[in-house]
Structures are given as structure tokens and as C-alpha cells.
């Protein structure tokens, strides 16, 4: 069996993920700003709406690279956090759907509900991480 290269743990991976995530968020906010203030012409609106998509693909690429850098326990923790966060997110959205109300638990407008998803993931990650401490 190939023992594989030694993994060197650096603080670069989390920082890169953070920067990529922040870039994605800023791209989204910039696109939103354009829509709210400039009302782009037809066809241009599609271009503007797709600006965050480019940042998203970069984010996914950075996350995939970061996953290769971390060790197997940390990978397991992320997997369990996802397994917890995904159905929790579904539950939140289903409940909001049942209520059929634009009001959300945090008082967020419907278009900002997505903020709950990373928050739930971070929360689930903290819970799972605690189990392996």
C-alpha cells in the first residue's frame, strides 16, 4: 500500500477558503447593487446575475483543494456536518413553505434566507467537531 506523501498542516487552507467565500459574497452583493441601482438592460441582466457564478466556481475549486490538504478526521467532521446541516436546512425551508409566509425566523426577507445555510453549516460543524474533541 502506498503510504502517500506526508501532509503538512498549515493555516493557509482555511484562509484561502475564507477569501474565496468572501469574494463570492462580494460578487453577489455587487450584482445585487447593480440590480437595485442601475436596472440593467435585458441580456445584460443575465450577465450581471451570472457574476457570482464565476466566483462560486472559484470557491468550489478552492474548497476541493482544501479538502485534499486536511486529514481524514477533519474530512469526516465536514462530512458529518454536511449530513446534519443539509436536512436541517431542508427542515427550515419546508417549515417556511408550510407557513407560506415571507417572514423568516430571523426576520430575514425571503431573498436573504440563504444566509441561514452557511450559518447552519458552521453550527453543525461546531457540534460535530466538539464530539471528536
Amino acid at each position, binding site marked *: 500500500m502506498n503510504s502517500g506523501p506526508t501532509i503538512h498542516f498549515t493555516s493557509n487552507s482555511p484562509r484561502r477558503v475564507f477569501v474565496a467565500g468572501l469574494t463570492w459574497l462580494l460578487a453577489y452583493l455587487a450584482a445585487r447593487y447593480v440590480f437595485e441601482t442601475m436596472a440593467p438592460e435585458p441580456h445584460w441582466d443575465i450577465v450581471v446575475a451570472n457574476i457570482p457564478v464565476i466566483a462560486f466556481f472559484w470557491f468550489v475549486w478552492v474548497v476541493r483543494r482544501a479538502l485534499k490538504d486536511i486529514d481524514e*478526521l477533519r474530512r469526516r467532521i465536514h462530512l458529518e456536518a454536511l449530513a446534519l446541516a443539509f436536512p436541517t436546512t431542508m427542515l427550515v425551508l419546508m417549515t417556511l413553505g408550510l407557513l407560506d409566509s415571507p417572514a423568516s425566523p430571523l426576520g430575514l426577507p425571503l431573498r436573504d434566507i440563504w444566509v441561514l445555510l452557511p450559518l447552519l453549516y458552521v453550527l453543525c460543524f461546531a457540534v460535530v467537531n466538539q*464530539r*471528536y474533541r
Partner: protein
Amino acid sequence: MRNDLKERRAQREWSQGVLAEKLGVSRQTINAIETGKYDPSLELAFKIARLFKARIEDVFQP
């Protein structure tokens, strides 16, 4: 799965950090294995056994 990783590490007077570095994993991983919270992958189990010059079934018991 039970293991005697902690005893073997203590015999060599290695800290968790030292063992983690030798195996290329985090200290949290070593701690989780020693406390039985996490069962390592087969690849890591082989690396551990090889490092301690033991058979894998001597280090890990079902």
C-alpha cells in the same frame, strides 16, 4: 474498535503532537483514535502499525 496506541506512544515517550507529525495527521486525529472516538482508515491503520513495527491486529482489536 479498541487499540493500544496510547500505551505504544507512551513507551516511546512521544507526545500526541510528535506522533501526529510522524503520521502526517492532526493531533486531534491521534487523540480521537486513542480515546476510541474515531476509527482510522485502513491506510492510516497500516501506517500506525508500520511505525510501531507491529501487525495491524496487534494495535487494533475489534
